[in-house]
């Protein structure tokens, strides 16, 4: 097991290196080059020259790349020019991250408990009304753009019938104590129940909108995977032995069918980040997705750089964790 983890860690280093190189090339090909990317387009000529020398842009390209790596490791990505002018880009990212984690967490909390049982029963009663209905719903989840789902939810449940708040993370008139940056958790930790409830109400609509993406995918994978497993010999053997349906379901079917589902849940983290850009924009929810949309619109390359690097790093890390948990569940994977 340890050898497996070490091997995967080495592979991850390779991926991160290639990723950083791509990011380096991307930064070099931005309109105006890296200097504009860090200083913004309206910097004075003398500041530009000073930075060019400091960044070593007159040196060979591989030296430049190494310097870029050094700065990236030290967390120096430059100062924001537009999103929060004057603030360190890394700081903006760290400030916004809890909101997006909270949103993604609740989206998954909605999607997983719905998608897995539905996928299981749809496969079990293949061709039934339940099966067909859930397939249509999951197809709609794929075909309806997530920002449109978000808009519809906002239009009906926040504007037409004002049940939920329209935007933001918490109402301004609530005096909440900040502990972790996760507003719901903060409210529970400090026993400020009104603050926790208010944050939860703000989360509801964006989380439901965002949940449509992982719901559709997890449902389809669960259904397909359960269908595959139901046809396996060991399920027939279990049935022939006269085991109860409950034992067959938990030990033979679900445990095996969950393998591909675990992977796909990990892969969904990336899709969630992409979806967060759209839902956070619709609900003016101050997470990294909204920061990213703003950074792009206003050409704030320092912020853009941090966010893209961080998003990819998070995604790689989550996939490493998924691989490790996969190896824990399925001993066959370790041998490969």
């Amino acid at each position, binding site marked *: 097991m340890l050898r497996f983890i070490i091997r995967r860690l080495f592979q991850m280093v*390779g*991926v991160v290196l*290639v*990723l950083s190189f*791509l990011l380096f090339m*991307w930064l070099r*090909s*931005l*309109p105006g080059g890296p200097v504009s990317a860090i200083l913004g387009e309206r910097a004075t000529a003398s500041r530009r020259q000073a930075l060019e020398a400091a960044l070593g842009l007159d040196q060979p390209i591989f030296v430049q790349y190494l310097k870029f790596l050094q700065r990236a490791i030290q967390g120096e990505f430059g100062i924001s020019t537009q999103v929060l002018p004057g603030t360190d880009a890394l700081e903006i990212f760290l400030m916004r991250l809890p909101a997006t984690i909270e949103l993604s967490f609740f989206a998954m909390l909605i999607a997983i408990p719905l998608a897995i049982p539905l996928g299981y029963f749809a496969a*079990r*009663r*293949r*061709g*039934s009304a339940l*099966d*067909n209905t859930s*397939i249509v719903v999951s*197809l*709609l989840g*794929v*075909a*309806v*753009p*997530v*920002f*449109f789902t978000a*808009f519809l939810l906002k*239009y009906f449940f926040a*504007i037409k019938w004002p049940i939920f708040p329209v935007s933001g993370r918490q109402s301004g008139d609530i005096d909440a104590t900040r502990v972790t940056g996760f507003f719901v958790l903060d409210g529970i930790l400090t026993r400020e129940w009104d603050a926790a409830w208010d944050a939860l109400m703000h989360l509801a609509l964006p989380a439901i909108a965002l949940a449509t993406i992982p719901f559709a995918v997890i449902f389809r994978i669960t259904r397909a995977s359960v269908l595959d497993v*139901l*046809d396996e010999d060991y399920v*027939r053997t279990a*049935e022939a032995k006269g085991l109860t*349906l409950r034992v067959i379901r938990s030990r033979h079917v679900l445990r095996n069918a969950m393998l591909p589902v675990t992977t796909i849940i990990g892969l969904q983290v*990336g*899709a969630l*980040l*992409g*979806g967060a*850009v*759209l839902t956070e*924009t619709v609900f003016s929810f101050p997470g990294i997705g909204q920061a*990213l*949309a703003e950074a*792009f*619109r206003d*050409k704030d*390359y320092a912020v*853009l750089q941090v966010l*893209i690097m961080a*998003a*990819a790093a998070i*995604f*790689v890390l989550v*996939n490493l964790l998924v691989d490790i948990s996969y190896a824990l569940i399925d001993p066959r994977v370790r041998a490969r």
Partner: protein
Amino acid sequence: MTDQHGTETPAPQRGRSYGERRKQRIDDLAAASVDEAPGVSLYASAWRRLRRNPVFLIGAGITLLFVILAVISPWLAPWDPAATPLLDKVRPQSNPVPGPEPGHPLGGDDRGRDLLSRLLVGSQQTLIVGVMATLLGFFGGITLGTLAGALGGWIDSVVMRIVDVLLSIPSLLLAISIAALSQKPSQWTVIVAIAVTQVPIFARLLRGSLLGQRVSDHVLAARALGVKPGAVVFRHMVPNSLGPVIVQATLVLATSIIDAAALSFLGLGNSDDRKPEWGQMLGRAQPFIYDNPHLAIYPAACIIVVALGFTLMGESLREALDPKSRR
């Protein structure tokens, strides 16, 4: 969703209850031990099943209708989509979006242009964006996948590492970063940005399929007969691998159209709106959305129907071409 059983053998009754499922499985086993039906090619049997599959027919119908509409829409549209016949009805303060009236069944947009005509003609640009992005991604992916799968060795390692990294960046973020490289956003920025996100998908798919074939009998036979390596790859291996890649392309068309709409929504799309496009119309509707949601709902509905059409068609194609589902 669809009938998985071939039509060669009488389709067994689909079991509903648990006990019936067991019975059916035993019947299936018995049927499998009987001599196989005379060989039918994968494509012939797939087509036979597709013809009777309502899911495929609906999907293909929507797709066909969409393509025809895109071609004939300039003649179908009652107004020029760039003309502004309702301009004098636009009141920026009180009534920014003219409502329906005789001759303009859906009303106008914020610049007094006929909404129905823009929706009709919009199908054209939407089709172009979807098809061009998919084609670019397709050929890019095929090139990389063939390089990796056919040559193997260190080239394979390098190409696949890059592909893995591209896959590791969430596709919308990747599209945004590509779009950030252009000075001025245009239709082509959107197309290229989306195509790049699809290259790794196609590359991985083709490479996997090529690797599987390298040791297969027909490739071995061709090699033994002295066929040149290039010809083995391009005449024997690639054509045999294209099936799943083409099915994937159908599915990717749907996501291309949706992603293009997302980019337009974020303001990264084409700013020149004389030629309407659904994603762009949806993006442009944002400021008026609370008083005039129909401005967003019509193009969104069009996108959803078309994306659903491509998805239904692609899914049923994939199921039909999957050898596992043949009985």
